[in-house]
């Protein structure tokens, strides 16, 4: 049981956002569709919801072809980035509205509205109007309205995008718990890796109008099959270095060569793309350690993000990012020494960008 998309294509205003896309989502899944903005995530969600029919291909829910079925006749609910509530309705009536349309009894409506409001911590706001609420509260109302009807599929299109980071932190945990209590399939579109990491059971990386990689969340994170997976599902994005392999070394520049033995891979001579996540590049206090490759880097900017520090670095024209799990501020243009953990390097084909070795993930 679940959702299946077969060979789905969709144009919007002359632009093709989805092309020959296949996707199969099983029951109990919290799927995060991860991709940058303007890459077709919203179109995909609208097609799954039935708001727009696909131009080509078929959609099945629980084995039944629903391709031509209108959104009203499907058990779907959707939450958007923009908080959408009826301004002239109270919070209570906003949450109740899908139940009224579906013809529930007022007793049942009352019970469900109160239960859902409690889950979203908005019980005290039921008599208020949307314009009296903060952005975070308004989005809670919109989420409550989506969840109140026990939809088969809940689609969320960057619902936390307009909220500040402390609210996002709280709502991620709540959404994960709310989803766990329900039988619905959740599909959550986002450009933010942290959303997927915090909530999703499965991840689909969308690129070039198709699903580039699909799998269990941790597996997609640890084993990117394509450079774009590493780039999109990593915050900051995975760093990529052009490396030429010969004589047992991967040379990134004249004075920066990584022994293949340290990377624990065997590669034929040639050009590769070496991918490493920012937190596997470490700032050294002094000297070098045996199993790492060290290089000098100039700090373009150090930024505090949460309880971590992101360092924008350059080394002879190569730009890359390191992430330190503490607060470390450096002056602009200060030279520091960093080490790349060679065992955490993912090797990609320099031409087709496909993975060659995820040796890093084996550990």
């Amino acid at each position, binding site marked *: 049981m679940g959702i299946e998309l077969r060979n789905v294509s969709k144009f919007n205003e002359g632009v093709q956002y989805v092309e020959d896309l296949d996707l199969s989502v099983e029951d109990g899944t919290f799927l995060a569709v991860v991709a940058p903005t303007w890459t077709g995530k919203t179109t995909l969600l609208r097609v799954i919801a039935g708001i727009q029919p696909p131009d080509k291909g078929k959609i099945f829910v629980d084995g039944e072809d629903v391709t031509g079925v209108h959104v009203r006749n499907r058990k779907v609910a959707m939450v958007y980035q923009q908080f959408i509530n009826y301004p002239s309705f109270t919070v209570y009536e906003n949450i109740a509205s899908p139940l009224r349309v579906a013809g529930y009894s007022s007793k049942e409506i009352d019970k469900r509205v109160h239960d859902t409001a409690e889950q979203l911590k908005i019980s005290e706001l039921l008599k208020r109007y949307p314009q009296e609420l*903060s952005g975070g509260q308004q989005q809670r109302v919109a989420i409550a309205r989506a969840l109140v009807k026990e939809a088969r599929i809940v689609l969320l299109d960057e619902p936390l995008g307009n909220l*500040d*980071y*402390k609210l996002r*932190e709280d709502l991620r*945990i709540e959404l994960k718990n709310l989803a766990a209590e329900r039988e619905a399939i959740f599909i959550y579109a986002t450009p933010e*890796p*942290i959303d997927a*990491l*915090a909530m999703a059971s499965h991840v689909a990386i969308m690129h070039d109008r198709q699903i580039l990689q699909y799998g269990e*969340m*941790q597996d997609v*994170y640890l084993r990117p099959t394509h450079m774009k997976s590493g780039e999109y599902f*990593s*915050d900051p994005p995975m760093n990529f270095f052009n490396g030429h392999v010969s004589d047992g070394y991967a040379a990134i520049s004249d004075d920066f060569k990584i022994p293949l033995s340290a990377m624990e891979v065997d590669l034929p001579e040639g050009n590769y793309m070496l991918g490493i*996540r920012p*937190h596997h590049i470490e700032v050294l206090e002094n000297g070098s350690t045996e199993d790492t490759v060290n290089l000098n880097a100039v700090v*373009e*900017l*150090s*930024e*505090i*993000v*949460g*309880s*971590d520090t*992101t360092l*924008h670095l350059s080394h002879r024209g190569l730009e890359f990012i390191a*992430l330190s*799990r*503490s*607060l470390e*501020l450096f002056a*602009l243009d200060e030279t520091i020494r960093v080490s790349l953990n060679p065992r955490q390097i993912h090797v990609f084909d320099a031409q087709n960008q496909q993975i060659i070795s995820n040796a890093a993930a084996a550990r």
Partner: protein
Amino acid sequence: MAKIELVNVSHSYTPGEYAVRDINLIWDDAVSSALLGPSGCGKTTLLKIISGLLQPTEGDVLLNGQRVNELRPKERNIAQVFQFPVVYETLNIFNNLAFPLRNRGYPESIVKERVREIAELLELTDQLKVNANSLSAAEKQLVSLGRGVIREDLSAILLDEPLTVIDPHQKWQLRRKLKQLQQRFEITMIYVTHDQHEALTFADQVTVMDTGIALQTGSPQDLHNRPEAPFVGYFIGSPGMNIFPASLNENQVQAGDFCYELVSDLVNQVNGQDLKIGIRPEFVEISQAKDSTGLECIVDAVHLTGTSKILDLVGAGLKFKARVDETANINAADTVRAIFPTEKTMIYQNDRLLAPVQQEILL
């Protein structure tokens, strides 16, 4: 450039309700500083009081020691940069940058020299003849910034969420430019934002505000390592600080099964009213060894951040979070032991920091 002081400043828009209260703050000449807090905390009111758009109902604004309450914005020589870039669309970049100087009758030779200097720093030299209406949002904001700093007789620049409309991938480059400008011209800059990332990255001196009160002013490290109010602990850092209600039994402060002996003069400061204990998730020490010290906890859930694991822990009569390395082999339902290192554990009374804990006693 100038030193700015607020002395006992309070402001109320409606009698009896304070938007900001008892503010005493000093910005030394050439400091890079930020006012940080959630929406409605009073930071924009404070900004207007500094710029002269608003006269405080109580207290004084001093510029270089001189009271300037009655001076209008123009007379204070304070420039402002807003969320949305303000450029003259019909003028090219050169004439945009030159505008504030020509407006004040500077000779054209100085105008040219100054514009070239600023343009070089902002990397706009090649585009000086380009019309402003063809620029991206980021470029327009750069021009706004440049126009803000171009006058040498400026007292200070106030920046009000200046990166809101900038594409996320371009933000760090703008942040770097901003810091470069600040350091090169030694400008007093006050940056107002709700975003801790922006504030901590830009400023050497950050003031955290909530409900009209300035809770703490300090370096990013001060705010992180020694939050002087529970709200600062919550608002700075991700996830925020764990805060527990605590009770006083003779000379011992207790939260759950964590118990601390109050040492020396601290005893006299504690009256037991609204006591709280706070510790950051990254400072909690977790051990999986059975014979290790620390209090026994059950792992309720494990959240991934991509670089670390965040544990939800239940035990010792408390619920709290701890951050561990991504490689830690800890799963839900595991039993672990937790230690709150004394120097990283804070005692709060009436929402003010008394001191870090000095001595732990095991019950």
